[in-house]
């Protein structure tokens, strides 16, 4: 089992969700986060005083999949979230030892 984590541009999240649903992904965890990478932040001006705002708003998606689906899911996220401009985000995959469904106690593949 794999945990796929994607940090993407907020306005791309609906497209990504739709594409993943079409593929058959049935659930995910989504958070509004902030951070920065090569995109850096931006400048704001209040009464003439300039402030460098380092953090940029992003959406983080977390999905647990079976091993065989991981590459496909990553491909879908990258293809859908891509604008080609700086700040598109990142996707990474990590291994998972155990998953338990809270309602039933089902474990691992049965719990996904």
């Amino acid at each position, binding site marked *: 089992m794999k945990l796929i984590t994607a940090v993407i541009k907020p306005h791309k999240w609906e497209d990504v969700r739709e594409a993943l649903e079409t593929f058959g992904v049935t659930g995910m965890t989504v958070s509004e986060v902030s951070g920065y990478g090569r995109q850096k932040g931006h400048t704001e*001006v209040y*009464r003439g*005083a300039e402030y460098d705002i380092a953090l940029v708003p992003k959406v983080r998606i977390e999905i647990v999949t079976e091993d065989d689906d991981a590459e496909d899911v990553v491909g879908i996220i990258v293809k859908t979230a891509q604008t080609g401009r700086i700040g598109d985000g990142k996707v990474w995959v990590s291994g998972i030892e155990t998953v338990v469904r809270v309602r039933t106690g089902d474990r691992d593949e049965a719990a996904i």
Partner: protein
Amino acid sequence: MTALPAFAATVPDSGDTAWLLAASALVLLMAPGLALFYGGMVRSKSVLNMIMMTFGALAVIVIVWVLVGYSLAFGDDLGAGLLGDPFQHFGLSDLMAAGDSAVPTILFAVFQGLFCVITGALISGAIADRARFGAWLVYVAVWTVVVYAPVAHWIFDFSAGEHVGGWMANRVGVLDFAGGTAVEICSGASALALAIVLGPRLGFGRDAMRPHNLTLVMLGAGLLWFGWFGFNAGSALGANQSAAVVFAATLVAGAAGTLGWLSVERLRDGHATSLGAASGMVAGLVAITPSCGSLSPIGAIVMGAVAGGICAWAVGLKYTFGYDDSLDVVGVHMVGGIVGTLGIGLIATAAAPTGVDGLLYGGGADQLGKQTIGVGAVLVYSFVISGIIGLIVDKAMGFRIDGEHEVSGIDLIVHAETAYDLHATAGARSSGSGLFGGLHSGDHRDEEDE
């Protein structure tokens, strides 16, 4: 401000009285307007304290004003035009019975008290995020008695019949229709002294202390403008031609101030900002406050636009000199008040209610000289006395909260409240009310003595 009209055909005049009743309520609305204007400009961890400094000042000043403030400002002069008799109208008790003026004197007293409220509340913008609430209330009570009341006596208390008023209005002839000196310069200079006494916020000039809610700022600015019609046009003390001319000037100057500030911003910083629009509007209104009775509508356009432009520049002075006038009371109110009060000497027209020509209208430099005396006197007096009160309060009880508390947020430590509950998972659970369960000793409560 004109002298309270006496011996009207009908006493009291119902039209004049109705207008001043409404105008007083409009001036009161400026307090919550200012609270929102200021509250939106601070960070989310200190918005409640910012709002509470205005509401606290409102409560304290009204009481002090009724007890002694009004008498000090509008009682018979004790000598030299410096101060009124502090016991003449104690508690306003002697104003209960009907008099012979077109507007009941007790209504005039209330209207004037609300001027003191807004002036005092304005000061709080200079000490955002870091003042102990109790110390602020003590400061503002003392300030009402020893700063505002005397200054109001100087400029607002006109001699009439056997009543002798203040030196600036009666002996010098300074023109100040609604408070460029007593309200704007007084609040700005008092604020400058207090900002210096308290010192800058931790991280001033380094951290991005950006406004947390500009929609509140815009709403507050709108309420201020609305209330300002009561402030300025109410100062005509009647429902008459003067009030109407002043009303028009108040409308025009707010608009011109907005454009003046936005123009400077667009040229200097590249963008016309919403905070700039709100600030420019207020700057225009500040400058028209003393001059609304002395200018033509075209003059009001010039006054508003110039004030908007100059104040947009003046708010940067705090970074040059290193005082933390957090919300720019000095840059907007003190500087705008000076522009408006001196500007009367330049562009006043005799066609306006005060009937005086300024320098550019062929009236010579005479009025400009008088205006300069008024500006200088109020500037120096307010700054010095406010600073002394601030120092005494600081010595006696401590004016600033702990640095640690300032960083974590003044709302929680001083008021035990959080302004915005936006998360379902805050972990909040009732620990029994103070009434029935006794005070819960949360880790922040036993540290604070407020």
